């Protein structure tokens, strides 16, 4: 079949003074009708730039400086702005990562979808409304008439993305570019959206250029795949061939870093619990006036769990499940309303704020965002030494200890003098780990510690965590939304939904024989479930 969209040796130049000269270097891709081509890569690989280059919607100062982009035989690079506008939306449509910000918050959904027809057709207002409603029906939004009138903030994330898809497909474009369309969504919603895209694409014969960082998604949806690194396509081919038998070293390393969903053989756990969580609850009340019309949210509802000494307890769930609130209750960043949190026999939940301040040395936390979790105005070494100083160590000793800790987490001890912005994401997460470990806590609460990291960096941090657990005899509470990661690091797992633990047990058992329907749905939703089965998580750094 002849390709409908061809990128022929395309290069995109970045403004002078950046860390590299080209966002894309000599990229060649071909997309045929009725196929899904996945462009996969880590952050900074130039995969999103590819989408923007095709649409000719590049940020200021960034220009295409070589090659041709052929759409139905016409070179898009040579079109005038007015001709290009006719192609956008009608010929090539696009959906984005974050449906909340990709929709205008001040205009209704129907209005924004209808705009497609206004721009590219001569339909009357009544016809536009009818067509828009039909589109909303087609993307299976629950109540199309209601969604038509709704504003973006009144819909859920999944519904918003459905509306975006309806908008993109309004004029039956030949090509749909999907730029990480499911990254911001929960795993169950993601599964539905992927299915929707697949179904619509099959029915309409659309050519889809699907940009993602997730190999699971690639395995789930792609017909063909192109792997990008540093602005270049390093490998391309049929999905099964590339995933099953990667040729390029980079692809191999990348695929090896994806954690398989199957848990490794169980370790024997100690019978002695280090922390017992009993009947912990936290509710939020919002809105209302003088007690009337209040909305009560049960963020955490009667949760009871046990963490054996030296074990890792995973808490998994989708956004809004209460897993982060629970984590913050454990370290008393949030005060639980009721329940006990016994650590070494002391009930943390009943301590006064002053008592808790000294008890913090036994339980420490690692945070999700490597950029937000370090004070930008404090040297990395000071950040690590801070806890020691607060708990009574003299400053010079504390700073010396910080250097040792830097070594422990695999950072150069000389780097203590640097400021956080001089480190990469993975390195910052190591600093966060060193800060938490400085107080030699008995329990480490890790809140999505690798979620913000690229897959290869994620593998390294997970490896470090496993080593430290072994060496220091740490007990860990590991919060994550990523079941693949949970499978690799946790001994025990608790699945949370709407503030409650719906199922808990040894990870191997829960993942292979899920009992609760929600756990089953969650596991069934993971894209590319079987991908990576039967191999071990590689820990080798990616070059």
């Amino acid at each position: 079949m002849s390709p409908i969209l061809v990128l022929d040796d395309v290069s995109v130049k970045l403004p002078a003074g950046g860390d590299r000269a080209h966002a894309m270097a000599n990229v060649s891709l071909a997309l045929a009708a009725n196929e899904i081509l996945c462009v996969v890569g880590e952050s900074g690989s130039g995969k999103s730039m590819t989408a923007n280059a095709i649409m000719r919607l590049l940020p200021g100062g960034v220009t295409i400086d070589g090659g041709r982009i052929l759409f139905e035989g016409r070179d898009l690079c040579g079109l005038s702005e007015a001709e290009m506008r006719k192609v956008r939306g009608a010929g090539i449509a696009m959906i984005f990562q974050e449906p909340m910000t990709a929709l205008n918050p001040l205009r209704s959904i129907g209005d924004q979808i209808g705009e497609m027809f206004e721009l590219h057709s001569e339909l009357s207002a009544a016809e536009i409304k009818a067509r828009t409603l039909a589109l909303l029906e087609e993307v299976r939004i629950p109540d199309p008439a209601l969604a038509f009138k709704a504003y973006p903030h009144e819909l859920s994330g999944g519904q918003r993305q459905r509306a975006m898809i309806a908008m993109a497909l309004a004029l039956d474009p030949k090509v749909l570019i999907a730029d990480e369309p499911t990254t911001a969504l929960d795993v169950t919603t993601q599964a539905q959206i992927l299915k929707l895209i697949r179904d619509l694409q099959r029915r309409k014969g659309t050519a889809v250029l699907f940009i993602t960082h997730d190999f699971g998604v690639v395995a789930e949806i792609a017909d063909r795949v192109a792997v990008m690194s540093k602005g270049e396509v390093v490998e391309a081919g049929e999905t099964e061939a590339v995933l099953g038998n990667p040729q390029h070293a980079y692809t191999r390393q990348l695929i090896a870093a994806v954690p398989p969903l199957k848990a490794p053989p169980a370790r024997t756990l100690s019978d002695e619990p280090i922390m017992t969580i009993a009947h912990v609850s936290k509710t939020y009340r919002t809105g209302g006036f003088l007690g009337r019309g209040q909305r009560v949210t049960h963020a955490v509802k009667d949760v009871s769990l046990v963490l054996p000494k030296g074990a890792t307890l995973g808490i998994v769930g989708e956004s809004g499940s209460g897993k982060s609130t629970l984590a913050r209750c454990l370290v008393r960043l949030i005060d639980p309303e009721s329940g006990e949190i016994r650590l070494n026999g002391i009930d943390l939940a009943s301590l006064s704020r002053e008592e808790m301040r000294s008890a913090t040395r036994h339980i420490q936390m690692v945070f999700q965002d490597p950029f937000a979790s370090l004070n930008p105005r404090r040297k990395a070494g000071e950040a690590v030494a801070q806890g020691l100083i607060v708990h009574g160590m003299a400053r010079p000793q504390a700073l010396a200890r910080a250097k040792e800790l830097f070594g422990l987490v695999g950072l150069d001890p000389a780097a203590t003098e640097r400021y956080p912005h001089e480190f990469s994401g993975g390195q910052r997460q190591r600093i966060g780990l060193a800060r938490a470990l400085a107080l030699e806590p008995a329990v480490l609460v890790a809140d999505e510690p690798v979620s913000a990291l690229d897959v290869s960096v994620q593998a390294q941090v997970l490896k470090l965590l496993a080593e430290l657990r072994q060496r220091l005899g740490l007990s860990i509470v590991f919060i994550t939304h990523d079941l693949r990661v949970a499978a690799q690091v946790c001994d025990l797992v608790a699945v949370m939904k709407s503030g409650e633990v719906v199922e808990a047990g040894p990870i191997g058992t829960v993942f292979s024989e899920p009992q609760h329907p929600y756990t089953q749905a969650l596991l069934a939703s993971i894209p590319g479930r079987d991908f990576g089965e039967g191999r071990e998580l590689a820990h080798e750094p990616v070059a």
Partner: protein
Amino acid sequence: MRVLSLAGRRLAASIPTLFLILIGVFLLLQLAPGDTVDALMAQMGGGDAATAKQLREFYGLDLSVWAQLGNYLWRLVRLDLGFSAIYGKPVATVIAERLPATILLMTASLSFAFFFGLILGVVAARGVNKWPDTLISTLGLMFYAMPTFWFGLMAIVVFSIYLQWLPAGGFEDITVSYTGLRRTLDIALHLVLPTLTLGLFYMAIYLRIMRGSMLEVLNLDFVRTARSKGMDETRVVVRHVLRNALLPMVTLIGLQAGTMLGGSVVVESVFSLPGLGRLAYESVIQRDLNTLLGIVFVSALLVIAVNFIVDLLYARLDPRITTGS
């Protein structure tokens, strides 16, 4: 309806604020050297202590501070602002006479500042870092840095003394008594320079805010969505950017209503307009504390009223307010 109830709730919330202001200013004025009676006696050319005592009893000034405060607030609840000894009229009457000029000046200046601030801000943002932007931004800075009263004086020199196009002051021509349309035109002519004087400063602020907010909104994701639909830049700006960019500007109007009313004190003095601001100035000079307190009350009400309108406007612009999540 939900818009109204929302704005109504905000309105109710401003009642404690109002009382806080009144109590604060009332107590503050107790610290002032000399009270109304002193001022009155001075105006009468002095008098003996017995008369002063009598007058103090008459005005209730012999009571304790707290009793006086209680009296004052109780009278306020009945909308009685007291009696101005200096003007020999109830304070409410004095203020009512002066209010129209100020409201007219405020409305005119605000409309002028908002309208031109909006347009110039959009033009500057569309041509960011090109010559129209540089020109508009420079002019904006100049107007911002100019003392309003000085601009007023210089405008009088140029337009009233040198060119003789516009009157130098006053609310209307008192030498001839116009009626109807002719009078309206006369008042409008008198208000041109005061409006420019007060309005240009705020126009400078609004244009800067509008420019910044336009540039910020132009970088948002949904603008990229609009472009990816094949929309041209003008339509992108009109249909998607403008309304979003207006929100910070509308908020600012509410926040600055008080400052603007304060600015009218100076402008009304420069152009001898018989407004509230000038009345405030005169009350300070003449130590007419009752009137001053009345002005504080009425100005606070005005600011609260402006904020009420701004709330309604904002809720109309932003559906998230009323159907909020």
